[in-house]
């Protein structure tokens, strides 16, 4: 396994952001789901060598990020897409990526410019390479942020909400790109979009209150809600969550009443059952 997280703890004051998280990552795409404040960003920052855990152990490509020289080596092989990339607004797209390429030790000017053009092409920004960042839309800025994470073809991609703010077409393009990239690298992405997890992730980890509540396949997550998803003509009193569909019926997740039409569960349903169960102190129905 290329990434190993063992009993990692991280506190902010008295609040535990990570409370004994353990997992391993190999090639392929692993999704990270969780409610706000679950500790997702903290976990990603630890993997991106931004934060050091208070306790526990991280190992990335067999290297210890706690040691400065090994941390530098990890950063050479890491691509990180943060929630806020901190653009230099007066830079052009090309200049910004070029600057980060320099920081990533691409010293040869010709090779570096070729690399910059490559990542801009991967993210569909070739036509915008001379456009100043302040003139880009939110979606294009997100693509630019993704482009910088792909510099140097890193072995580990850590992506924090990569599809936030992207329209459906761009989200599909992103899925296509990430799927291609995951063939020979580790991709770890956090998202609120369960559809992205269902579409491209080989594996999903659900984080809640700093703990990993689920670690398995997306279909397995959906199975957690089997027998707990139904249709109702009236507002379902016993549902943890429900919503009214276009045909006027209600789709409910929770403890079903008798004699209702059950539905095939989705990842979203399983997520709700998992996180909702933890919040309400109840266990989900048997898978």
């Amino acid at each position: 396994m290329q990434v190993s997280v063992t009993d990692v703890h991280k506190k902010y004051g008295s609040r535990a952001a990570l409370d004994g998280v353990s997992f391993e990552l190999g090639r392929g795409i692993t999704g990270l789901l969780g409610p706000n404040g679950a500790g997702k960003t903290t976990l990603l920052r630890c993997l991106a060598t931004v934060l050091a855990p208070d306790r526990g152990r991280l190992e990335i490509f067999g290297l210890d990020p706690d040691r400065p020289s090994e941390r530098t080596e990890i950063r050479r092989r890491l691509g990180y897409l943060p929630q806020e990339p901190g653009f230099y607004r007066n830079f052009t797209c090309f200049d910004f990526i070029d600057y980060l390429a320099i920081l990533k030790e691409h010293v040869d000017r010709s090779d570096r410019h070729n690399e910059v053009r490559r990542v801009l092409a991967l993210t569909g920004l070739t036509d915008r390479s001379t456009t100043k960042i302040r003139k880009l839309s939110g979606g294009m800025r997100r693509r630019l942020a993704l482009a910088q994470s792909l510099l140097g073809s890193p072995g580990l991609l850590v992506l924090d909400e990569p599809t936030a703010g992207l329209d459906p077409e761009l989200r599909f393009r992103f899925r296509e790109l990430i799927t291609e990239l995951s063939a020979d690298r580790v991709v770890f992405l956090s998202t609120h979009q369960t559809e992205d997890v269902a579409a491209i992730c080989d594996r999903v980890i659900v984080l809640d209150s700093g703990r990993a509540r689920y670690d398995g396949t997306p279909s397995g997550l959906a199975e957690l809600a089997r027998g707990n998803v139904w249709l109702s003509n009236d507002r379902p009193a016993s549902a943890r969550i429900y919503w009214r569909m276009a045909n006027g019926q209600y789709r409910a997740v929770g403890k079903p009443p008798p004699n209702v039409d059950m539905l095939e569960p989705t990842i979203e349903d399983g997520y709700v059952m998992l996180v909702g169960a933890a919040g309400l102190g109840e266990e989900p129905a048997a898978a």
Partner: protein
Amino acid sequence: MALRHPLTFFGAVASVTLAVVELWREEPVLNRASVTLAWTMLPMAAAFALIAGGAVHRARGRSDAQPPMIMPLGMEQRTSGLLLGISFAGAFATFVLQLALLVWLFTRDDAASLVWNEILVGLVYVMFAAALGAAIARWISHPSSSLISILTLIGLMIAVPYRQGDWGQLIGPEWLLPMAWPQEIVPYEVAFRPAGLHLVYLGGLTLLVAATAVLGRWAAGWTLLVLGGSLAVPTGVAQLGPIAETRQSSVIEQLVGDNADLTCETQGQATYCALAGYERWIPLWIESAEPILEAAPAGTTSGIEVRQYPTVNPLTASDPFEQLDQWWFDALARDIRARPRVVAVGVVWADYAAFPLAHTLARVIAGCGVQCDGEAQTFAFLWLAAHNPGIRSIVEGNIGGDTAPIADCMVAEAWRLSSGRTLMHANWDAVIDPTTSYEEAGALLGIEVPAPVDEFGQTGDGCE
């Protein structure tokens, strides 16, 4: 991008404005102007301190979780790259400004020679300021580091009082500061300014400050520290060293006395002697002296020598007794006293400097010493001196007041006479006699002499 930064523009405008204000009034003396071209770059230095500090802050990003902070190249290497780019951009911009100012100076009647070591101090100072801004921003991540940079630069210039020694040199630790102000009353020719040593010292100081900006696990920071210290420490010590005793006599011999290195030119009735490098000013002196010389009676201007001495105050060049505490003034005063027909000029020339030249020339022709002893002699001196437009304006201003000096009134009366000059020439010897009174001179020239109203020789209304 540093060159396109708005602060570069404002710094350049401020520096050029400062330099022009300092240099426009007088004809450029290139050795002193070299020092001016250095210290007037202070606004540029402040600008680049802020630019460098801002760049380091931006490189740090708004949080540690942004891509620039999670790169193999650490903050030390990043800061060094920024510092190299910005400080050399600042040096280039400063050099362009200084060259432009030099071109302007060369279009005027410049004298003496450029001192490149002094000029380059201004350029290196901009690099020093950039390093300082970067260093402070590197270790103080709060935006207030910009203010700290500016306060530090200001403090370096004003915090340490400048004390002057007998040689006009700065004594104590002042030369250890990045910039050493020129001494206003000390000519560059006699001031002890170890400009070459100071330039190297400032370079070493810049490397030291740059080292603090890039210190970390990177070996280059420590290398810079050692290199900067190796340059700054020995040159810093050397520039504070004592002045060789033999230097005093060799300096004086070149500037004052019979063996002084002077270029002399005889024009009409007078000889004009300029120090090396000041020959271009001889026509300016001639232009100021000629009205006086032409108005003087025949035979009264033989042996007149307009001679340059190393002093920045033209008035005290002719009245040397006021600055006896300057080490070279004793030699200067003795030389002037030994030459009764000499008119001393200094190493400053401007429109206002024509006044003391005319003033002294008229005194010498009228036979006065430091001041005229006789009443009529005073009138004769003033009549002659008023052929200088500046002195004439003063006389015209005096006679328009409630009271006026009697001599000024007599000069005004003499102007009204169509044969004023003829009468003055005819009665010259009697008029410049120290025992001749105003009334006696008035009788000789047919001029009405007003009665005095006080003991200072002032008269009342009716003079105009």
